[in-house]
């Protein structure tokens, strides 16, 4: 059983708004492959992850925004070179993440 889909189904049954973020492409090195997903509920619960913890906080914010707006979004995160506090992956990879509200 996929624990993320399980959680999403449960939250939707409770009539909570939910967004899902799914890794759709990984370039160079990356910890988790395409298909890995993270779900966020409107009351701030999180299931699953999309990286080794590097981009989850940013994806969480995007997911919350998608819950509000209903607009899907394709995000790209790369290396966090010179921006000391920027969002990125320390492993040198680039991940593409699709964020969408679960209204299907």
């Amino acid at each position, binding site marked *: *059983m*996929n624990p993320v*889909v*399980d959680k*999403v*189904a449960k939250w*939707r049954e409770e009539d909570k708004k939910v967004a899902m973020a*799914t890794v*759709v*492409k*990984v370039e*160079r*090195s*990356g910890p988790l*492959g*395409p*298909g890995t997903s993270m779900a966020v509920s409107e009351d701030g619960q999180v299931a699953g992850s999309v990286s080794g913890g590097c981009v989850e906080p940013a994806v969480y914010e995007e997911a919350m925004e998608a819950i509000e707006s209903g*607009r*899907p979004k*394709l995000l790209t995160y790369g290396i966090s070179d010179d921006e000391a506090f920027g969002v990125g992956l320390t492993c040198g990879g680039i991940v593409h993440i*699709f964020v*969408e509200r*679960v209204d*299907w």
Partner: protein
Amino acid sequence: MVVSILERWHAALVGQSPVAIATVIQGPGTGGKVLVSPEDHVGSAGNEDLDRAIIEGARAMLEGGKTGTAHYGPRGQRRMEDVAVFIQSFAPPPKMYVFGAIDFASAVARIGKFMGYRVTVCDARAVFATRDRFPSADEIVVAWPDEFLKTAEVDKRTVICVLTHDPKFDVPVLKAALETPAGYIGAMGSRRTHDNRTARLKEEGITDEELARISSPVGLDIGSRTPEETAVAIAGEIIAQRTGHSGGRLAERSGPIHAQEPDTATSPDARDAERSAAEAAVRER
């Protein structure tokens, strides 16, 4: 009541039936979603032509258990890039068959479950093949291993571990295993058991090419002693065999850790060889 894509998806995962989820991630209709099963589909990506192309593509990917992005024209045309569709396959868990209900089998069954396999333990001896001894196995079968394997479901993702190390059981079950498309066939035993077993298999008409499919003695060379350590060595070999990696230490290698195509990866050895060849070519110039 209309069943949503989410409900169908969840039910398929719970019931372990194959399903693919196709999502338009770029281009017109972004956010469109189609659930595709071998029999039917739910949802739409925007228009019937595009749906038809996506359903066909998703079924092909589902059959191979593949996940990735496909591109189409706005009305499903091939060789066009307007619409990017992410297709995710959810195939039922691969199967692991463990023969020989010994302590090593218990550890292998546990690590098999940990890796996501559906584990079946089989032994002809009813006193050993018990639920008490194999609490983590999905199924425990009391039968002659070769007879059971001939009726069992085996595909390319299937793992077969023969741990009986008794030629009386080993030889027939390995012969039966070689007739399947199993992705991994491992046989436990000392060097002496291995030599004896190999000789018997050859006597039975097994060719060298067929013998090469059997990982024997089973496992990576990590100095395992206990059943648990041995199970780790076997698990490591199962993964390495699937990905085409050799199982050495990453600390002693260079190059990327993850391959781009996990299941059709170039092995680190091949990569190292390619790199040295390229460096040699540069030096010659």
